[in-house]
């Protein structure tokens, strides 16, 4: 079977004025359907750049990235947006919810751009919110929710379109350890129950411990991979 993510010799070079910065220097990876991967590394190791490319927010300079066997290299901005909408869910460190917009409306956001009718949207958003344990909080605005609850809204938003992959960039970075544990428990449960692939960036060992596979980045290269 085709692996979910297939990466070969991925290189990303940033042009900062006169200076070229190599953020990624040849990454080769295969991530299968249903994996729960933690990507670790010091800041500047290239893990955020890697996530942006994985999430089709950025394009590699060289090398190949196949998501479900398809390359994003020659797609337009709008075609990439459509793939993000259908295949990828994002969870950010800073939650990135729309303030002044209720929880359920935040979760509906990807469905709006998938052109679903409003009744269907509301139904799916409510289901996603209950999946992360936020029934009854649909009408609350982000400012009325705790950090952990906000991150759960963000997870519901990432899941609402039933994507193949969930990308989480330091999802517990702004949370205390107890709430972090709760969020990780949700990740594990989703991974076990729905088989969704999760790729998560973290720099904390105990958060990474929740994942099934750990990959360590250093200076734009993979230096350690716990995959069998």
């Amino acid at each position, binding site marked *: 079977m085709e692996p979910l993510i297939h990466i070969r010799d991925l290189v990303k070079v940033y042009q900062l004025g006169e200076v070229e910065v190599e953020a990624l220097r040849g990454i080769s990876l295969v991530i299968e359907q249903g994996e729960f991967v933690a990507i670790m590394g010091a800041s500047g190791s290239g893990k955020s750049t890697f996530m*942006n490319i994985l*999430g089709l*927010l*950025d394009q590699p300079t060289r090398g190949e990235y196949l998501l479900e066997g398809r390359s994003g290299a020659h797609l337009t*901005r*709008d075609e990439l*947006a*459509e793939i*993000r*909408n*259908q295949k990828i869910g*994002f969870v*950010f460190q800073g939650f*990135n*919810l*729309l303030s*002044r*917009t209720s929880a359920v409306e935040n979760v509906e*956001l*990807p469905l*709006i*751009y*998938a*052109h*679903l*009718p*409003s009744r269907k949207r509301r139904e799916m958003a409510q289901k996603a919110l209950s999946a992360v344990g936020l029934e009854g909080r649909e009408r609350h605005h982000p400012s009325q929710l705790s950090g952990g609850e906000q991150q759960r809204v963000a997870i519901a*938003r990432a899941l609402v*379109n039933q994507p193949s992959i969930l990308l989480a960039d330091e999802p517990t970075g702004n949370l205390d350890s107890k709430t972090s544990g709760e969020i990780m428990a949700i990740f594990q449960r989703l991974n076990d129950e729905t088989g969704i692939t999760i790729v998560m960036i973290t720099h904390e060992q105990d958060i990474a411990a929740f994942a099934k596979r750990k990959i360590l980045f250093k200076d734009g290269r993979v230096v350690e991979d716990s995959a069998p």
Partner: protein
Amino acid sequence: MTTLFASLRIALRGLMVNKMRSGLTMLGIIIGVGAVIAMIAVGSGAKKRIADQIASMGSNILIVLSGSSTSGGLRHGTGTVPTLTVDDAKAILNEIQGVKSVAPHISGVAQVIYGNQNWSTLVYGTIPELLEIREWSLQSGRIFTQQDLDGAAKVCLLGKTVVENLFGGIDPIGQIVRIKKVPFTVIGVLHPKGQSTFGTDQDDVIFVPLTTAQKRLFGQQFPGMVRVITVQAKEPEVMKTAEEQITELLRQRHRIQPGQEDDFSVRNLTEVASSAEESARVMSLLLGAIASISLIVGGIGIMNIMLVSVTERTREIGIRIAVGAKSKDILLQFLIESLVLSLVGGILGIGVGIGSTLILSRFTQWPVLFSIEAIGLAFLFSGSVGVFFGFYPARKASLLNPIEALRYE
């Protein structure tokens, strides 16, 4: 459709959050649309008044004025010395095609006395055709007849202003007034016509039979002569040729040699009037154009606020792009916001425009005229201002780089 509706809701919510800012932004459009509507209403009101006055003067009229004549080396101005005759008038009617009717007249200012009241007014000695041509109608009484003309009867018709100044509340019909000390019986009162295009009171007038005027009032030193012949053509198309033919005919009749100056002049009244109408039209266009500038300034206000809004919401745009918003979704969202701003401003502006115009006309007595076309046009214009000035900020938003937008603080 779903997206459009959702975009509309997102846009409305965005505007509601910043009520004060949205209101101030709209104010520019409100003032702009209001000004356009008010200015066009005032302009068309003025134009309509002039058009009405032109219609009240009668249509297709040529005026033949007695010309300058030279007597003893002294040149007199146009109309000072009568050089036209009643026979000239008859010749014009009989010999020139396209002439519907002619009416010669002599006129002069005279003191009119009734009881212990007196009033100075313009007295016309003429035939009933003049009243027809100039569209004067009777309010009461009767017009003078051919018999009155033949017998040089001492009868007169009074204009509204004269009646008001001499009679107060009394019915003037059958009363005797003295014009230049000659007693005349009042046989009719004319319908009021109001002011002329040039501001003179058209109702300050008395009509008497031409023959009577010639014998008793003005014409004694020039028997059989008239100062003015009013000619009405059958249709506007023949005005030009009639004007030329009248000139030709009168030169022949007055035995004027080629190269010699005319002793009369022919004027096309409609041309004078339509140039007044034209200047009113230009005026109203000019007013509208000036008002449009304020609408454009309002549009720049919208652009300014939308640019601020895009910058403020960079992160929101980043989130939307990350979860799958396409460029056109973002573009649409911000375009709708500026369109809503300008259209709501447009609707309020229509109200403000109509309201302020009504207040203005109440206090200044200016005639105003609203037209659905002008209001519709101002509204559409405000909408296009919204799209035009909203496009640049919206496009800027739709082309943001999602990674940078998400990192934006």
